[in-house]
């Protein structure tokens, strides 16, 4: 790398922000043959450094990038490439405290602003995972989030398993968790051993709740049996699918159960450090979980003595980083672009080593499976839109759409059902004729739908469905990482065709939309591009929107 001499050095505040993550600068650099390796070995701290700058200063300046490059033994272009990838970072001056106003599906259906009408001092934000309180906005930077009793918008039932502690007390009270049988599943898991845990999980039929639905036991066993060590566990808490807020609800309200679940998973796959990749916008969940982790360490339940620890990595505003290989690049300090599969994560994941990536809800199923031998036959649904009581609902898999809407109090007064977005922006639309549809992935696949991440967004006659499709198209255009052509350009062409159709052009653009959808589905590198046309195609085909 060539030395670049620039006139403006990083400010003291910027240096301090970087040092808060990397520690003071080591003057061995440049004199010691080993120092370069040590410096470059800290690349995974790039994202935390960028956060530190963004939190304290509000933005990431050119001198700060140069300084960070020196500290990490990387080039300024590489650091700039990563900083410019994330939506929460700014490369131009702004205040440290920013207001992010949701312009996404549930919020605009509830009368929230669009990207054109949002207050010019605020940032138009993709779905903030606050659809139960739509329209929503948050502030980031400047202060820690305050405890908020409204964080548990759930409709609990007597027999709930996953939600049983939600809203039932102080979520970070470790004694209460222990008194409620907490960590007894971990005890039992220690007795069972890795193979016993995996058999129990296999017997429960647990599949991934993040959207893909892969059998959890198979994933764990594949990692467990890899000869290469160390093995990694990543809890994917980068919940960004529009309409999804279940993982946030779980972490904010039952953090110890997630910690216990990860401890059990780590026993199964043979891993000593679990990582939670937490969505950058989820500040309250971050506060709750980090408090809970700290208390567990003090109690010897995590840390060196326990043989297992957990660290939180904050995302920075990129939907794509929830993709299971993009998450590796993001954690390692590179642009969050998905990798090619094969090789699959179980053989070559984080740092090229065997890795299991599991969604929050998936993991939270584990303690009751281990402790009580329960079947994984329930899941969480995120009810939003025109229902009386929006929130997270736990229900048996296979419950009908109509029954689920009834659980949320039914439609709002005066509302007539027009459409239900199922599974998120990467999912699809059901119509008023589909109330008897059982919400079970196998059954839904037969009609071209998916449960995805459990989104059930109910739209009534007041919702402009064309506007919803426009936003879905804009969402994928914004969130495409840009690596492959079908997604990078396809999402743009899809949005353009929808805009033309919305203003009343004919058949040609509908067939163009189909052409675009086919290429994105068949030829994109990752799930984002492969599903970016799903909801739009389903609205056209099943509901006749745009026709």
């Amino acid at each position, binding site marked *: 790398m060539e*030395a670049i001499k620039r006139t403006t050095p990083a400010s003291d505040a910027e240096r301090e922000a970087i040092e808060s993550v990397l520690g003071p600068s080591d003057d061995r650099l440049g004199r010691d043959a080993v120092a370069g390796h040590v410096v470059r070995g800290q690349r995974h701290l790039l994202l935390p450094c960028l956060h530190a700058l963004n939190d304290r200063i509000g933005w990431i300046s050119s001198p700060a990038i140069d300084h960070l490059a020196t500290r990490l033994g990387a080039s300024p*272009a590489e650091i700039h490439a990563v900083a410019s990838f994330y939506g929460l970072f700014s490369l131009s001056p702004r205040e440290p405290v920013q207001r992010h106003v949701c312009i996404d599906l549930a919020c605009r259906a509830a009368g929230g602003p669009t990207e054109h009408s949002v207050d010019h001092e605020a940032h138009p934000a993709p779905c903030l995972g606050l659809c139960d309180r739509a329209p929503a906005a948050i502030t980031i930077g400047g202060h820690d989030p305050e405890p908020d009793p409204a964080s548990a918008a759930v409709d609990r039932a007597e027999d709930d398993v996953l939600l049983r502690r939600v809203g039932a007390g102080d979520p970070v009270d470790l004694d209460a968790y222990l008194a409620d049988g907490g960590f007894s599943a971990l005890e039992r898991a220690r007795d069972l051993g890795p193979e016993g845990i995996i058999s129990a999980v296999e017997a429960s039929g647990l599949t991934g709740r993040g959207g893909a639905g892969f059998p959890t036991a198979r994933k764990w066993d594949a990692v467990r049996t890899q000869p290469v060590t160390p093995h990694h566990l990543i809890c994917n808490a980068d919940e960004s699918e529009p309409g999804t807020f279940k993982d946030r609800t779980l972490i904010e309200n039952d953090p110890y159960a997630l910690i216990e679940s990860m401890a059990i998973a780590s026993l199964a796959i043979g891993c000593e450090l679990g990582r939670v990749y937490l969505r950058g916008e989820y500040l309250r969940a971050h506060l709750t979980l980090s408090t809970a982790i700290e208390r567990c360490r003090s109690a010897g339940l995590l840390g060196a003595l326990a043989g297992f620890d957990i660290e939180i990595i904050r995302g920075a505003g990129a939907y794509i980083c929830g993709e299971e290989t993009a998450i590796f690049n993001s954690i390692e300090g590179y642009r969050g672009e998905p990798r090619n599969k094969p090789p699959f994560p179980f053989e070559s994941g984080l740092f090229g080593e065997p890795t299991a990536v599991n969604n929050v809800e998936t993991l939270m199923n584990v303690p009751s499976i281990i402790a009580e031998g329960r079947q994984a036959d329930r899941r969480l649904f995120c009810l939003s839109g025109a229902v009386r009581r929006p929130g997270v609902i736990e229900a048996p898999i296979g419950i009908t759409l109509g029954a689920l809407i009834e659980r949320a109090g039914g439609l709002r007064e005066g509302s007539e059902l027009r459409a239900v977005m199922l599974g998120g922006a990467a999912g699809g639309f059901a119509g008023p004729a589909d109330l008897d549809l059982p919400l079970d992935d196998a059954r839904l696949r037969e009609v071209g739908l998916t449960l995805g991440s459990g989104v059930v967004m109910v739209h009534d006659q007041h919702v402009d469905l064309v506007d919803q499709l426009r936003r879905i198209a804009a969402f994928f255009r914004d969130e495409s*990482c*840009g690596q492959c052509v079908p997604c990078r350009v396809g999402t743009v*062409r899809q949005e353009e065709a929808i805009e033309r159709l919305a203003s009343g052009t004919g058949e040609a653009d509908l067939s*163009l939309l189909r052409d*675009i959808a086919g290429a994105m589905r*068949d030829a994109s590198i990752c799930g984002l591009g492969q599903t970016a046309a799903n909801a739009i195609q389903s609205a056209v085909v099943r509901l006749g929107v745009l026709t």
Partner: protein
Amino acid sequence: MTTIDGTASDTATVEAIIDGVTVRVAEGTTILDACGGRGCGIPTLCYGETITPRNACRVCMVEVEGSRTLVPSCSRPVTEGMVVTTRSERIDHSRRMVLEFLGSSVDLSLTDHVEEWNTEYGADPTRYGSEAARVDEPVRIDNDLYIRDYSKCILCYQCVDACGEQWQNSFVIDIAGRGFDARVSTEHDVSLPDSGCVYCGNCIQVCPTGALMFTSEYTMRQAGTWDESRQTQVDTVCGYCGVGCNLTLHVQDDSIVKVTSPADSGITSGNLCVKGRFGFQHAQNRPSAD
């Protein structure tokens, strides 16, 4: 597989069926190479012989039995028992759309084979209308040696990888931004003289679209005097140091207009340094006419 003396070779092989024909290739061979490599009939855009394929353009997609989506032939290794189809309606559709997506968003006029592939796959980049978003970037002329015209860039990543860990280890450029706004860029888009660029020109060597170009070539194209039919290529060895890099001098009207190095050269793999790439003026310093 057996070697010349009849003993079994160490190289493991795999057998696969490609378009109905059974083939046996060394383990690790990509589908594209098993089909005969570049020029075998499978179109490629972002692929280059000297760079590990990123399979970013997705024009070389083929069908593999059992795979939900199409797979990139340039980078997917053949595995035992793999059944591959290299032409089908689904494949053709995907290739056509990729050609249209790129053709409607960037300038492919200097990219090899695009016109013939557009015809072969029925691609019509104009059907997205005149309002279709394009990568609109001014030509960056910030030094005397080469220009950057990102309105021709298909984001093949080859220049980034050539500048970075695969060849030059300068890391002067990377992809900045995201989605349709992603661009090859120096930090904060500073000019090359303000960056760490060492002007090896190895990025120009791998660029498949003419987005990176010798200033000499760019100036002649602007003046309408660039004419490859009048050019000769002279292979020689660089005289600057003892490494002995192979050079190919591109000569038009008795003047060197561009320097490349053969991609298959065992010494350079197509790479040079600033002297070999750009230091040719002394060879044509002629006495002035008077």
